[in-house]
């Protein structure tokens, strides 16, 4: 009666999702550092490394489809399959955002940088990487408590992202500095999205643990946690 093959396969997919989470977090960390440290080698490695994320994502996707078609999972198994499907897509998007950040270095390397903004980008990168790792740890440890930390961790990211507009606006007098700043605004926006993806993953894990899906933040209702955010 125990469905050994099915549960082995489900376990394998969860391990792959954890590996995808590590790759995505590493990509964001490296992309941020590439921008803050002007490290073109690191930027190229992020762009090249995205193929690995995409491969893993596609493998997870086909694995989930196969389980749904062949094994008809139910109850907690069904929820885990759904979580893997959704979270892998979130992590694939995180990888794409890391590439977006890494590519910004190429078009800004000859422009004048602003140290305050560079520091803020670095700070945002550190927080969203920590958010990703926390969301993935919440899944590994099956911890609702860790899930619920994510909205609070996201608050400073949203604040820094909003503040970025004002910092960039200050550069308006110098066209080259402004050009650089507008690209940094895009990087900031990409990192802010990574933070949202991490919250999305925590919501998925919360669904796995409780059986009820709820959004931690709701951007369409001002006054909620996400009122500052996207």
């Amino acid at each position: 009666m125990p469905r050994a093959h099915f549960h082995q396969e489900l376990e394998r997919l969860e391990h792959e999702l954890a590996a995808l989470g590590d790759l995505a977090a590493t990509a964001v960390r490296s992309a941020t550092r590439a921008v803050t440290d002007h490290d073109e080698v690191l930027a190229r490695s992020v762009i090249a490394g995205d193929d690995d994320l995409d491969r893993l994502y596609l493998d997870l996707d086909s694995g989930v489809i196969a389980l749904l078609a062949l094994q008809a999972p139910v109850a907690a198994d069904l929820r885990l399959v759904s979580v893997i499907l959704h979270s892998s897509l979130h992590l694939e998007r995180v990888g794409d955002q890391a590439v977006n950040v890494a590519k910004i270095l190429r078009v800004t390397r000859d422009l004048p940088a602003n140290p305050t903004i560079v520091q803020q980008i670095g700070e945002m990168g550190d927080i969203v990487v920590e958010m990703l790792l926390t969301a993935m740890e919440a899944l590994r440890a099956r911890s609702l408590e860790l899930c619920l930390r994510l909205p609070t961790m996201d608050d400073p990211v949203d604040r820094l992202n909003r503040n970025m507009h004002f910092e960039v606006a200050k550069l308006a007098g110098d066209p080259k500095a402004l050009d650089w700043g507008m690209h940094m605004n895009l990087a900031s926006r990409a990192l802010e999205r990574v933070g949202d993806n991490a919250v999305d993953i925590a919501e998925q894990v919360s669904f796995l643990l409780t059986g009820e899906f709820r959004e931690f933040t709701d951007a369409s209702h001002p006054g909620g946690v996400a009122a500052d955010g996207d």
Partner: protein
Amino acid sequence: MELIEERVDDGIVDDDGHHAGRPVLGRPERDELAEPAAEVFDVAGLSAFYGDFRAVRDVTLSIREHEITALIGPSGCGKTTFLRCLNRLNDLIEDARVQGQVRYHGVDLYDPRVDPVEVRRRIGMVFQKPNPFPKSIYDNVAFGPRIAGFDGDLEELVEGSLRRAALWDEVKDKLKGSALALSGGQQQRLCIARAIATRPDVILMDEPCSALDPIATQRIEDLMRELIEDYTIIIVTHNMQQAARVSDRTAFFTVEVDEASGQRTGVVVEVDQTYAIFTNPSDERTEAYVTGRFG
């Protein structure tokens, strides 16, 4: 015909708490029902015994009208025994007895004044293996009504029952042919037509598809969804996907083993909307069973 012969209500309650003179009690007309999902069965503290052996213990659940309720659980969990308690089919087994209460539209089904034949007319049963009589297709369907003294248009009743069982088009030209010449799936639909012909209220199904191929199974499942417009269906199935596909509510039974005596007894673990049972069951024993981690 009433379950209990009608009497004048003298307000006297007998020793068993039965209202001695209570006139009883067909099922209410549907448009008279106050609640949209009225209860057909209200089972409380039901245990079923074969001699000293207690097959199921303390079953408490209700069955709602015009719903399909699936009974699932491992072998020996008492789900078939429980099903047979609902139309007193276990009465036919020597030494079989029940404790507790089965109320059918408010009537105590085991009240000594209740006529078990009338119970089985109102609460039909379709068995695991199709069991048509070795008679013609027509006579199989007409059998029950004839015995019950049906004095209406028998041909119309037979045709209507075969149509309702989604079999008419396949057999209308060979009604005098032997029922045993039909395929397994057709025989099972014939048994459903035979059950319908006595104009029941409830149809009990004991693994009705386990002897059928997937296409015949799907036809029966489709038919079940059509039949609940008029009937209430309770199905025992070993196929959890079948329970998930066809039923509105699912009751999960399991086996408890007494450590001292080693005796195995069936118990109900959880009854809920089928969607809840298969996405987020409340009891970890249900979770273990439906996800295949049982045992």
